[in-house]
């Protein structure tokens, strides 16, 4: 099955290599410059990960505010995988205006991402998410994804009960096992597959980036210029 079929009719997600590692490493260096939490002269992703673990929730939040200046993050993620993006959506796109860098911090319940469909935010059903860690994932700090068939069964059951992201979805979290990706790998998924994080033990926080994109020629749902911008692949 090719990538497009896998994403549309198959499991709804796939693990792929990052195409332009030089750019992706530059992205990671920009992150380290902007977050500015490592005191060492040579900035290193593991020093940042270990510093984040020791920070309070307020300090983590304030360091994330520093990342608001990372205005070309979306473009950098998209340009790290141009062929993949073009295969799924063509060259003319709406991409997320401000991509996210997210932390999963051991023992900090509030930073855990609950089991959810991307659709709950109002993005179009024609959207995909690229999610990539900024380091190897050697523990359970990554993201798990539940395949499209199982996610759809839950969605239909909830719809019949008039619910979205209700107890059935939330109770699925505990038995999940996040994928152990390497730095240089990403997972791409459609907005109908359930995904989230689990609590984990580690001396390091997990740091990953993600961006959403759709074809410019496909309809929007609730997200508009507040969230998306027009972008044409080179």
């Amino acid at each position: 099955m090719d990538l497009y079929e896998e994403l549309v009719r198959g499991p709804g997600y796939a693990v792929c290599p990052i195409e332009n590692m030089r750019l992706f490493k530059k992205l990671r260096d920009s992150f380290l410059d902007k977050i500015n939490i490592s005191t060492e002269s040579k900035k290193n992703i593991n020093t940042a990960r270990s510093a984040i673990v020791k920070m309070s929730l307020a300090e983590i939040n304030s360091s994330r505010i520093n990342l608001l200046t990372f205005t070309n993050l979306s473009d950098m993620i998209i340009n790290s995988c141009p062929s993949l993006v073009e295969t799924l959506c063509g060259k003319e796109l709406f991409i997320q205006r401000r991509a996210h860098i997210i932390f999963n911090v051991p023992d900090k319940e509030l930073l855990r991402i609950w089991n959810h469909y991307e659709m709950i935010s109002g993005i179009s059903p024609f959207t995909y998410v690229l999610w990539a860690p900024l380091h190897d994932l050697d523990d359970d700090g990554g993201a798990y994804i539940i395949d499209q068939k199982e996610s759809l069964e839950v969605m239909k059951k909830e719809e019949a009960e008039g619910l979205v992201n209700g107890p059935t979805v939330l109770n699925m979290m505990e038995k999940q096992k996040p994928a152990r990706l390497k730095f240089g790998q990403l997972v791409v998924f459609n907005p109908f597959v359930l995904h989230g994080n689990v609590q984990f033990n580690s001396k390091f926080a997990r740091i990953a980036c993600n961006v959403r994109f759709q074809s410019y020629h496909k309809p929007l749902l609730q997200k508009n210029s507040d969230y998306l911008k027009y972008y044409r692949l080179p």
Partner: protein
Amino acid sequence: MSTATITTDINIGPFKIPANGQNMIMNNYASRNNLVVEVIIPEPLMSNALATTQWLHKEKKLDKVILCTIHQLPVKQDRIDKLLNNMEDVEFHFALEGISGTGRNFLLECIKEAKMFMNAKTIDSTKTTWSKLFKMKQEIGTR
């Protein structure tokens, strides 16, 4: 020289934002970006000419204006021309998009982007279901 926020009609392109909501959005943007708002300009409803703003600019010499979104910029060419001629030296901020800039090219880019969003099809989320959205994706495809 002063900074102004501009409220407009509740119907703003794809959004519906009451004036007090617009004020909250713009004041939050101002605070996050260390901007001090001195003038509050209420544009009349059912007009996106930004004529009151242009008239006040002549008198108060605004140096920065904050709007909620690029969708509040004029659509008709004659109104766009007037805005560009009268306010090309003013720094425009658009809170929801989180972008800012000065000059004719910046404003024309914003107007162009607003037009692209207005030309895009939008699914009415009040008239669909999760299953229908899934079916739509499967049938139409994503590219």
